[in-house]
């Protein structure tokens, strides 16, 4: 196995992840990309989605990110997200509530509806829900 690459996921509130990883997969705006150690310096914006990485022992982890930026350097990957949660920290009820709320807003057809905002809220909720459901069905 090649050397590990240091993965750091930072939000304004805290460090979500800071550990060496074998491989990091992240959802770039122009498509998902994978980073291994020794990557060329690379900078991209991110979509709402999940970051997927293997830690040093080869265990897989999923982290939700609500868009942001990623910078890959040969020895580390830095992901700047406005919010990010590890899969196991996702609040299912909250995501469900946010999903319903966003649906309602989109269906209400009010004049002052901020469509882009409601839609991105919907997407965030959807990705969170999918991640939780995906992992629980896998473990059963």
């Amino acid at each position: 196995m090649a050397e590990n690459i240091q993965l750091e996921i930072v939000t304004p509130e805290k460090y979500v992840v800071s550990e060496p990883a074998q491989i990091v997969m992240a959802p770039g705006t122009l498509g998902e990309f994978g980073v291994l150690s020794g990557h060329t310096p690379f900078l991209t914006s991110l979509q709402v989605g999940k970051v997927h990485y293997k830690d040093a022992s080869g265990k897989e982890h999923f982290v939700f990110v609500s868009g942001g930026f990623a910078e890959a350097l040969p020895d580390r990957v830095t992901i700047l997200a406005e919010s990010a949660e590890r899969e196991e920290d996702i609040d299912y009820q909250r995501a469900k509530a946010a999903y319903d709320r966003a649906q309602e807003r989109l269906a209400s057809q009010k004049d002052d509806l901020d469509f882009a905002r409601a839609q991105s809220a919907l997407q965030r909720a959807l990705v969170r829900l999918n991640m939780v459901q995906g992992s629980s069905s896998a473990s059963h």
Partner: protein
Amino acid sequence: MASLKEVKSKITGVKKTKQITKAMNMVAASKLRGAQTAMESFHPYAEKFAEVLGNIAGKAGDDVSPLLIDREEVKNVHIVLLTSDRGLCGGFNTNLIEAAEAFMEEKVSAGLNVSFTNFGKKGRNWCRKEKLTIVDEYLNVVGGKIGFNVAATSAQKFIDAFLKGEYDEVYVVFSRFVSMASQPPFVQQLLPIPVIEAAGEAQETVEEEKGYMPEHICEPSPDELLNAMLPRNVYVQLFNALLETTTSEHASRMRAMDNATKACDDMIESLTLAYNKARQAAITMELMDIVGGAEALRG
């Protein structure tokens, strides 16, 4: 003995005040810890953000975003004033408001229109009293736990207004948390973004750390990336200002309450002295009466 009773009730009163100020001091201390932690946990993000922004700003053109360009004719200035919602924190709000006022007068005397966004009740009330234009107000934000989305939402509002040409310059007045003893008010320009210095600084530190400047591949193009990052940079600045102001508020309140508690102690001491003196005088008087009466009987 009316005066004796008066002094006594005064002592009780001061003691009760002392209890309150002491409790407030402790509450402020614990909130200060929370605020400081929030501030510290934001630092990594802010640093990384500045670093990445610095990396990319060097590559993109200077005039890629209207957020970077100074307006040739400045007519409308917008001030984001950060104060606390509550009082009893010493000169904290007064200092901030004075700074804002001085800054505003400078602009007004240059013939500019000034409008405000207020965070915090104290600044809002001042603006109302002075009949200034309040565009937006946010209460119950400073002093509590601040979400990044609050900063993002409000910053986006004035970014939009700036792009529409409603404002030509946007500043934030906030309290910088230098140390426990010093939280000076500070005026910072938010828009147009004075990015050139920030990028230069960030680049220098990166270069020092690593000794080389990596050539980034950018996806999408550097210009697009920079365009996406610049508004976020404003959120980051505003969020940082909010965190610093919150920390300063608690630090300032803690000191004010500490002083008040000490003042209470002094007062209790001098009142107790007065009380004891009066009591002693009363006893002496009574004793004199008895002795005098006994003398008279014997005589």
